[in-house]
């Protein structure tokens, strides 16, 4: 199994930490994982993305043109990465702020109203965990226990008290998928 993902959105949306959590979770499950951020100057205010590869085998290239899954969190990223999903792959996006919905027919497309849901839960910070939950339900190759372990690994100890909330968000996300 090899799963290659791109997550893209605004800086501040938790794009990088989402990717980190995915990578850590995979490692907890004794898979190989590689996390490669775009660390460009666009990070300040602008857009931000990270490529995550997960595999049973050693990961060769950390950098890719096409992905099994794209998780898209704003319009510029949609414009840039819709075409980067492999035929048959998955595109998942939060419709909040998206003005042009994806049009490809050869991929599976999911919308996750995570922003809306997080606002509803009055916890805007867990927005990205909701998205992650949604992803996990579409690509269920990671066990939730490993994801929680990955969470624990990637959060600094002082933030471990937030783990239950995050776990909740994951579960919420898992049930939030709609296919537009």
């Amino acid at each position: 199994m090899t799963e290659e993902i791109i997550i893209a959105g605004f800086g501040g949306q938790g794009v990088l930490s989402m990717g980190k959590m995915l990578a850590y979770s995979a490692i907890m499950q004794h898979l190989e994982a590689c996390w490669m951020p775009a660390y460009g100057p666009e990070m300040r205010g602008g857009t931000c993305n990270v490529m995550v590869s997960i595999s049973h085998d050693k990961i060769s290239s950390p950098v890719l043109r096409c992905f099994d899954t794209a998780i898209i969190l704003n319009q510029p990223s949609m414009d840039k990465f819709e075409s980067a999903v492999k035929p048959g792959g998955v595109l998942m996006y939060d419709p909040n702020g998206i003005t042009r919905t994806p049009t490809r027919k050869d991929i599976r497309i999911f919308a996750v109203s995570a922003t809306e849901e997080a606002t509803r839960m009055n916890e805007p910070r867990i927005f990205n965990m909701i998205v992650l939950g949604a992803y996990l339900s579409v690509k269920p190759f990671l066990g939730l226990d490993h994801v929680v372990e990955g969470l624990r690994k990637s959060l600094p100890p002082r933030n471990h008290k937030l783990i239950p909330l995050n776990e909740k968000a994951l579960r919420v996300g898992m049930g939030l998928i709609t296919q537009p």
Partner: protein
Amino acid sequence: MKGNEALAEAAIRTGVDAFFGYPITPQSEVLEYLLQEDAQKRTGMVVLQTESETASINMVYGAACAGRRAMTSSSSPGISLMSEGISYLAGAELPGVIVNVARGGPGLGTIQPAQSDYFQATKAPGHGDFRQLVLAPASVQEMADFIPLAFDLAFKYRNPVMILSDGVIGQMMEKVYLPEPRPRMTEFPEWATIGKKPGKERKRITSLNLIPLEHEKHNQKLQAKYRQMEAEEIRYEEYLCQDAEYIMVAYGASARIASRAVEMARAKGIRVGLFRPVTLFPFPAPQIEALSLRVKGFLSIEMSAGQMIEDIRLAVGKNQRVEHFGRYGGLVHVPEEILEAFERFYMEPHGH
């Protein structure tokens, strides 16, 4: 763990004595990690944010004089500022490790990854007839592993060693097995200036030699070390080269990316292999020369306009095709385009 962090953690664990650094993207995490992890408390390692890269390298020089394991880390423009200092290390025969997490140039260029400092690292890190040993990590694991290796080599040869990484390897995260902690040195080499020992002669460390004939001898000694490196220190990795008709040559991040291109090519039935120089100086020229006797062509993959290709050509001569495919100026190639380039060069009917 990020490549930069793995490197920093390895420095703590393998008992590095001193780190001197100045912030610059994409390697600032090295300094930050060492300070946030309080390396000083963990092992007594000296960690100092300096006022400039010039200060950094001259501090490495100072600590190296005391026989300590001293290192610095920077990215391309900062490395240029160290040119004089690296030359002094080499001239005074001091060990020291310099990490270059390279970015695109020239000038300020970009903060994105690049491999365009190959010439600088391997041919002319500074003025004068000298070489530094250059290690090119291609994984987060190697970012960690090359720290103890680099120091061992630096002390073996009393010569600067560069870890030439790039923004991809420095910024990416993957699984890494960290070295077992080992204690810091407590015995220092006999040449170290740590205070004259009673009854012994005083020591001096300098790169100056005013008598030309002596200075030539000194230089010949340095050259002999470089020849010894060429004989003893070449490191490389072959991937699917056994039956290969074509060889891609790539190091660092490019090698990772090219290995995927090789897999893609194999999937198409094209017999391509990947040769990865791990040491850039000494360059695995004999190995490439040997390969050249049985393959049909080489493709050098670099995140540069083509620098390593000169070393390949020197190894191969003119009887074999050696082509170059590079993205540069901060662009990182993707496996697909490497394969496309390969096919353009070698698979098209009138490819020559």
